C-alpha cells in the first residue's frame, strides 16, 4: 500500500493575501495646540492622546519661521527650511514690479496665445497651433518626501494636504493625492460666497463675498449665481447661472429652482450639494465649453425679508473638467463616485461670512460642523481603501474653527462677552475631544501594526492687538513721505515715494529692505544693508504697547541667519515674530497704513498664529516613544522615509523622531522654536 501525501499547501494557501507591508499613518490636525492638549490631557479629557503621551510619544513640535500654514506644511513636505522650498508667507512680492503681491504657493501664468476668431481668442494646444494655455503652477520648490517613497514602490495615499496645488506628479505611479489648501473655488479665489437679500440695495463685493439684492414680484424673484470669468472672449465677461426663488406667503419656507433642480428649504435649513454648470460660449462652429461647480444654499430668513446664502462655488469633484485637483487626475472622481459630492476648495469653512456679519456664531458653528462631517466621511473612505504604505490625512477644523472661536484668557474678546468667549472656546475643546476619539479608533484598529503620528503645523494664540508695521516703518522714517497712506493701493490714499523709502512690509510677517539692484526702485546700497537690518531689528524688539507697556515683538529673525538654500534670496529680509496676543494689522498685510501703530483687533477672526515661532509650536504624538530632542517639522519627512527603509536625502536637515539626536547648533535652519528660546536663555546665563 502506498502512502499518498497530499501537500497541505495545495489545500490552504492559495487565497491567502500576502501580509501587509509597512504602515505609517499620519493624521494632520492643522493648528492643534500643545498647551491646550496638555491641559486637557491632564484633566483626563483626551484619553487616547494621553495614552500616547504616557508611552513617551508626545512633544511640542517646532514650527516654521514664520508659523503660517503654507510655510509650515512646505517644511513638512520637503523636510527642509524655506530656503529650500521657497515659501516664506501666504503673500510674496515681485521685486521686478516693486512690491506687487501674489499668492505664494501657486502661480497662474496667463497666456496671450490663442486663435483669433471674431469675439474670441481660443487657445488650441494641438499641432499646428501649439498654443500655450493659461496654466497654474505649483510654486513650492524642492522635492516632496513622497517622491522618494514613490521611487521605492511604497503605496502613498494623501488626502487634503495643503501647499500641494496643483498636485505634484507621481513619477512612479504609487501615489494618490487629493490637494487641499490652495485649491481655488470655481471663481478662482479662496472662497467667495454669494448672499442674496431683500435688504441689499445694490450688488457689492466685499472681502470673500458678493452681496446682491433680491427683488420680489409678488412671491417670486430671479437672481444669478456668478461664475468664472469667460476668458476665451476678447472682452472677458463673468458667467452666471440664473435661479428663481419662490417664498411661501405666510410660512417660513422657500423654493429655489436652478437649472432644472428644485430645492425646498425651511428657514434655517441648508440644502445638499447642488450642481451648477456655467456655459462658456464659443463661436458657432465649436461646442460650448462648461465649467462645473457645486454649491449649497442656506435659507437664513424668509419673513419679513428673505435672505439666502450660497457657499462658494466649489469645483465639482465628480466632473472637475480641466481642473487638476488630484493626482492622478481621476482620483477625485473615484472618491466622488463612492461618497457623492463634497467640498473641494482649499478653505472650506465660511469664516468670511462670520467676519462680514452674515453668519451668527451658531450659523458658523453649523457650517463648520458640516465641513467636519464631510472630512470624517472622507477619512472613512481613506481608511477603507488603505492597505499599507503611507496614509496622510488632513483636518482643517482645528485651525479654521480656532481662528473664529479660540479665546484662552479672560481678557476682553474683540466681539464677544466673557461668557460667550468662554462658550465658544468650549467648541474648540469639544473638537479636540472628538478628534481624540478619531485617533483612538486608528490606534485600536492598527495598534502596533502601524506607526501612527498625530501632528500639527503650529499652535494658536489670542489675537487681541494689531500692529501696523508699515505705519511703524513710516513713523520711524523708513517709509517716506510722512503723510503717505499705502505702498501699493492708491485708492487708500497717498502712495509712498520709493526714492526715499528704505524698507517696507508685505504679507503677514515679512519686512523687505528696498535694496538697490534687487528691488526695481531700490535705493539702499548693499553696504548699508547690514547696519539697517540690525537697526530695524533692535528698534522692533524695543517696541512697547502704549496701552500697558508690554513688549509687542518677541523675535525678529534675519532670513540670512535662519534660511539656507537656493530659494533664500527671494525671502523677505526680516521676519517679525510677535508675542502672543499680537499680530500684524489687517491693513498692513497688503501695504496699507493706519493712523495708529497699535490698535485693538475688532474682527471675529480673533485668534491667530502668524507670530513668533517660539510662541506657537505645534504637536507631535506617536504610538512609539519619541527620542529626538526638540523635534521640529523638518524631522517628520526623514522619520517617514526611514520607517520605510528609504534613506533621507542631503536636503533634509532633520532626523528620525525615533532615534536620539537633535538639530546641530550650527545648523542654519528654522524649526528651532524651542531651541532658540532656550539657547537665548542659556546665553543670558
Amino acid at each position, binding site marked *: 500500500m502506498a502512502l499518498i501525501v497530499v501537500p497541505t499547501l495545495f489545500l490552504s494557501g492559495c487565497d491567502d493575501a500576502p501580509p501587509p507591508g509597512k504602515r505609517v499613518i499620519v493624521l494632520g490636525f492643522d493648528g492643534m495646540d500643545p498647551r491646550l492638549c496638555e491641559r486637557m490631557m491632564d484633566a483626563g479629557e483626551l484619553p487616547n492622546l494621553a495614552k500616547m503621551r504616557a508611552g513617551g510619544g508626545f512633544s511640542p513640535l517646532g514650527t516654521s519661521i514664520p508659523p*503660517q500654514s503654507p510655510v509650515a506644511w512646505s517644511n513638512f513636505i520637503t523636510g527642509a527650511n524655506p530656503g529650500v522650498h521657497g515659501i516664506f508667507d*501666504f*503673500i510674496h512680492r515681485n521685486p521686478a*514690479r516693486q512690491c*506687487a*503681491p*501674489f*499668492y505664494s504657493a501657486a502661480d497662474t501664468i*496667463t497666456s496671450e496665445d490663442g486663435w483669433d476668431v471674431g469675439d474670441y481668442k481660443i487657445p488650441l494646444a494641438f499641432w499646428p497651433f501649439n498654443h500655450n494655455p493659461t496654466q497654474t503652477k505649483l510654486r513650492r520648490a524642492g522635492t516632496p518626501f513622497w517622491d522618494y517613497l514613490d521611487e521605492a514602490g511604497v503605496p502613498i495615499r494623501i488626502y487634503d494636504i495643503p501647499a500641494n496645488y496643483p498636485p505634484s506628479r507621481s513619477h512612479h505611479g504609487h501615489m494618490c493625492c487629493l490637494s487641499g489648501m490652495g485649491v481655488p473655488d470655481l471663481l*478662482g*479665489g*479662496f*472662497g*467667495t460666497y454669494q448672499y442674496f437679500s431683500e435688504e441689499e440695495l445694490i450688488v457689492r*463685493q466685499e*472681502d*470673500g463675498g458678493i452681496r446682491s439684492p433680491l427683488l420680489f414680484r409678488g412671491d417670486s424673484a430671479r437672481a444669478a449665481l456668478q461664475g468664472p470669468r469667460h476668458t476665451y472672449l476678447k472682452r472677458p465677461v463673468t458667467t452666471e447661472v440664473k435661479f428663481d426663488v419662490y417664498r411661501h406667503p405666510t410660512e417660513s419656507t422657500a423654493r429655489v429652482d436652478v437649472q432644472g433642480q428644485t430645492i425646498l428649504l425651511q428657514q434655517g435649513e441648508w440644502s445638499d450639494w447642488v450642481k451648477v454648470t456655467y456655459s462658456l460660449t464659443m463661436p458657432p462652429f465649436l461646442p460650448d465649453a462648461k465649467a462645473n461647480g457645486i454649491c449649497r444654499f442656506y435659507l437664513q430668513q424668509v419673513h419679513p425679508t428673505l435672505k439666502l446664502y450660497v457657499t462658494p462655488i466649489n469645483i465639482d469633484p465628480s466632473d472637475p473638467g480641466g481642473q487638476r485637483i488630484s493626482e492622478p487626475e481621476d482620483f477625485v472622481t473615484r472618491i466622488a463616485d463612492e461618497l457623492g459630492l463634497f467640498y473641494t476648495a482649499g*478653505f472650506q469653512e465660511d*469664516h*468670511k461670512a462670520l*467676519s462680514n456679519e452674515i453668519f451668527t456664531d451658531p450659523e458658523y458653528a453649523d457650517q463648520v460642523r458640516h465641513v467636519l462631517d464631510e472630512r470624517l466621511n472622507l477619512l472613512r473612505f481613506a481608511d477603507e481603501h488603505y492597505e499599507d504604505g503611507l496614509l496622510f490625512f488632513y483636518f482643517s477644523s482645528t485651525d*479654521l474653527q480656532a*481662528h473664529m472661536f479660540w479665546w484662552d484668557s479672560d481678557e476682553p474678546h474683540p466681539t464677544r462677552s466673557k461668557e460667550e468667549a468662554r462658550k465658544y472656546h468650549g467648541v474648540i475643546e469639544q473638537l479636540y475631544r472628538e478628534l481624540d476619539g478619531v485617533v483612538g479608533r486608528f490606534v485600536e484598529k492598527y495598534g502596533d501594526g502601524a506607526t501612527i503620528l498625530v501632528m500639527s503645523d503650529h499652535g494658536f494664540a489670542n489675537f487681541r492687538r494689531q500692529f501696523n508695521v508699515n505705519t511703524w516703518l513710516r513713523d520711524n522714517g523708513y517709509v517716506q513721505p510722512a*503723510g503717505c497712506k499705502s505702498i*501699493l*493701493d*492708491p*485708492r487708500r490714499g*497717498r*502712495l509712498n515715494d520709493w526714492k526715499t523709502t528704505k524698507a517696507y512690509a508685505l504679507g*503677514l510677517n515679512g519686512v523687505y529692505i528696498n535694496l538697490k539692484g534687487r528691488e526695481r526702485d531700490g535705493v539702499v546700497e548693499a553696504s548699508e544693508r547690514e547696519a539697517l537690518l540690525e537697526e530695524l531689528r533692535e528698534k522692533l524688539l524695543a517696541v512697547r504697547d502704549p496701552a500697558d507697556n508690554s513688549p509687542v515683538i518677541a523675535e525678529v529673525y534675519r532670513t540670512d541667519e535662519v534660511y539656507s538654500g537656493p530659494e533664500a534670496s527671494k525671502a523677505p529680509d526680516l521676519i517679525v515674530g510677535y508675542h502672543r496676543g499680537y499680530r500684524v494689522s*489687517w491693513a498692513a*498685510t*497688503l501695504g496699507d497704513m493706519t493712523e495708529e501703530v497699535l490698535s485693538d483687533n475688532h474682527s471675529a*477672526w480673533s485668534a*491667530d498664529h*502668524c507670530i513668533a515661532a517660539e510662541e506657537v509650536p505645534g504637536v507631535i504624538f506617536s504610538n512609539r516613544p519619541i527620542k529626538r530632542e526638540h523635534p521640529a517639522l523638518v524631522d517628520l519627512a526623514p522619520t517617514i522615509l526611514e520607517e520605510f527603509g528609504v534613506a533621507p536625502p542631503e536636503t533634509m536637515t532633520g532626523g528620525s523622531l525615533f532615534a536620539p539626536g537633535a538639530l546641530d547648533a550650527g545648523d542654519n535652519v528654522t524649526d528651532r522654536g524651542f531651541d532658540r528660546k532656550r539657547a537665548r536663555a542659556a546665553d543670558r546665563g
Partner: protein
Amino acid sequence: MAKIKIDSALYDRVKKIVEVAGYGSVEEFVVHMIERELSTLEAAGDEAEVTERLRGLGYLE
C-alpha cells in the same frame, strides 16, 4: 514740463482739500490724483485682480 489750465473755482476747491488732507501744495495733490487714476487704469487686469483675490484670504482682511 507740460502746463494744464483749470477753472479758478475748481482750483479753490482743491486748495481747501489740500490744507486738510496733508498735501504740500495744489500741484502735489493734482499730480497724486492723476497718478492714482492712471495706476488704477494701468493696473486693471492681472495685478489688480490678484490683489483683490488676495483680500479674500482670511488672514488678510
